[in-house]
């Protein structure tokens, strides 16, 4: 079953086309990573998914319903990039307030708030005000609030920005746990290794268009460029021409067959002090698709 369906989504702000004909689907239990530089159209797509905007054209469906309708939004949980919490309230109060906005009450409310606190690892700080929490604790609570009403779809917008390695690891493990439980997740991030680790498929957007959508391996296969070789050279025969420029005894170059190239240079008498071969990865795919020019 397709939990999220985005079909030919278009949205403009004045003359700026923020989203231009984007289409994708996410089946139940799958995690889709949405990558793109700033201004790619990720936020607009997410706003359409949570019913914050009515798109100019196209269709958005979550669990078969229009997110513009309140009933559809009951199945969606969002953890926005900004820490969307009331700092003067405690962790418990934040969770129970947002749970109430989804109609939870009584025993179910208590159960879900308790589960969420455990999920975020904040049981012992539940009665403390959020403004006394560390950045990592706030991030975890931000995700827990998105889950307190037990949604079918979780939208995570940059969930690990500014957190320490321990909290980041806790978040990764928690998301993996949610995946195993069959939750459908849309994950936006700028960290490629996070996307590669957590997502079943990756969608790369730029300038409002969807440039690629596939598994990490398939994307690398389709769009990955040559491998990179980084080497420290001990000595080179004078008649040997190196494939890159030697700077302070160090050389870096790209090639399609790195092992064969290293063997060739070695046979010519080049002596390596250290050698590193880096295969194509998601970052190189991303840069290849979106370019290297700086964005706003």
């Amino acid at each position, binding site marked *: 079953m397709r939990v999220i369906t985005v079909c030919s989504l278009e949205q403009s702000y004045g003359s700026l086309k923020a989203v231009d004909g984007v289409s994708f689907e996410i089946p139940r239990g799958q995690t889709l990573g949405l990558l793109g530089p700033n201004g790619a159209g990720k936020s607009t797509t997410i706003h359409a998914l949570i019913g914050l*905007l*009515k798109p100019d054209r196209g269709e958005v469906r979550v669990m078969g319903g229009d997110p513009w309708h309140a009933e559809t939004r009951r199945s969606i949980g969002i953890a926005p990039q900004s820490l969307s919490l009331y700092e003067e309230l405690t962790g418990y109060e934040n969770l129970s307030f947002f749970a109430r906005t*989804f109609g939870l009450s009584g025993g179910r409310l208590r159960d879900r708030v308790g589960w969420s606190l455990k999920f975020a690892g904040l049981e012992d700080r539940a009665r403390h005000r959020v403004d006394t929490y560390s950045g990592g604790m706030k991030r975890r609570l931000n995700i827990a*609030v998105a889950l307190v009403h037990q949604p079918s779809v979780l939208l995570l917008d940059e969930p690990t920005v500014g957190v320490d390695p321990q909290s980041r690891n806790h978040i990764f493990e928690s998301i993996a746990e949610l995946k195993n439980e069959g939750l459908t997740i849309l994950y936006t991030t700028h960290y490629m290794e996070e996307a590669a680790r957590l997502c079943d498929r990756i969608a790369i957007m730029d300038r409002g268009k969807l440039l690629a959508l596939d598994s990490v391996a398939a994307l690398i296969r389709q769009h990955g460029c040559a491998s990179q070789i980084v080497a420290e050279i001990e000595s080179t025969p004078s008649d040997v021409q190196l494939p890159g420029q030697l700077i302070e005894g160090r050389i870096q170059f790209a090639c399609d067959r790195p092992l064969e190239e290293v063997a060739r240079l070695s046979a010519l008498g080049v002596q390596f002090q250290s050698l590193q071969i880096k295969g194509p990865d998601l970052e190189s795919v991303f840069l290849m698709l979106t370019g290297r020019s700086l964005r706003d």
Partner: protein
Amino acid sequence: MHVVHLALKDLKLLFRNRMAAFFILGFPVMMGLFFGMMMSGMSSGKRGKMEIAVIDQDNSRISARFIEALRKNENINVIADELEHAKESVRKAQRTGLLVIPNGFGETAGFMWELQPEIELGMDPSRSAEGAMLQGFIMQATGELIGERFNHPQDFLPHISKAKEALMTSNTDNLLMKQVGGAFFDSLSHMIESADKWQRQAGTNPDNQPTSMHFANVKSLDISRHIDPSSAEAQTKKIRTRWDISFPQAMLWGVLGSIAGFSASIARERTSGTLVRLQSSPLSRMHIMLGKALACFLAVILVISVMLVIGLFLGMRPTSFTKLAAASGCTAICFVGIMLTISVLGKTEQGVEGVGWSINMVMAMLGGCMIPVMFMPAVFQKLSVFSPIRWSILSIEGAIWRDFSWSELALPFTIMLVVGIVGFGIGTSILVRRTTV
């Protein structure tokens, strides 16, 4: 139910912010007490006495009797003084005024047919309004001198002799008139001597003490309702305690603190991202706005209630609690509308706070939060009709001490409700449009 939860959350947030809580409750209480103490002389029963320096240049029994009559007046504090020192004291505002009793005052004062001696009165220019009141008190004291003259009939004898002598030495040829007139004055003198003798004899018996005569037995009547009711004098006559004016003002300071806090909270929700979270819940935008409106409404009612309780403790006694409740409700509706409008005038919390307090201060100054409208210059009184605070204070005062009827309250109530509804409409429509990406 959702709206109530939203409102309770907002109230919790507001009162956990110590600075906001201070501006909503602490600051208004301080203002109420401060201005109340400043206005301590305004309540009708506790008006400060006029400090009047009296220079007695006559030093007669009658001038002493006149001063004694003035001393009996509870509105005047009579201080004997020298002329130059008294003038200096009035100039320095140490005395309200000065009164000079001239030489010869005792000879003619109290004889209605004689030319009355000229009493000089000097007033502190800043308190000239009280000069008219003092003239009235002087008339009252002079009246007592007439009674004093009748209590001492022998005082009339020199005047009768003088009148007879004038008649006898006149140039008239009418001998009959001189004879009849002379006989009349003799009889009158004889009658007064007999009366004086009888009075002195009767004076030994306590039961026969002569009753003192008074020019008039004056009793003060509250006629404030029959004079121009818009005049400050008329209005201040109704004030019963010093808190009657300061507490309605203080309530409005609390109301302004509330709307400043709530208007900024809407911007804060937007910038912090909690608004996105609320909008992604099943709540409608109208729910969210109504939640804010209810929270602000309850905060305003709470502020007014707290101030009322403190006022009651200090002695403020509203003439009608029902009317006060209605005035509070209309005030809350009015300022909820204003809060929602202010909340759309800036995009950031700081922007909204800046714009909000600017508008609040102008409304406060014009509306009588600082200086009561009745004490403002005429032009500012006219301008104050544009401030909702004026109508709010007027309606609250109407229920506390002005003793307004429902028909008198209808105008301020209507104005406040219209402002509230229009403000709610403007604020909500812009906010809903703005929060729809």
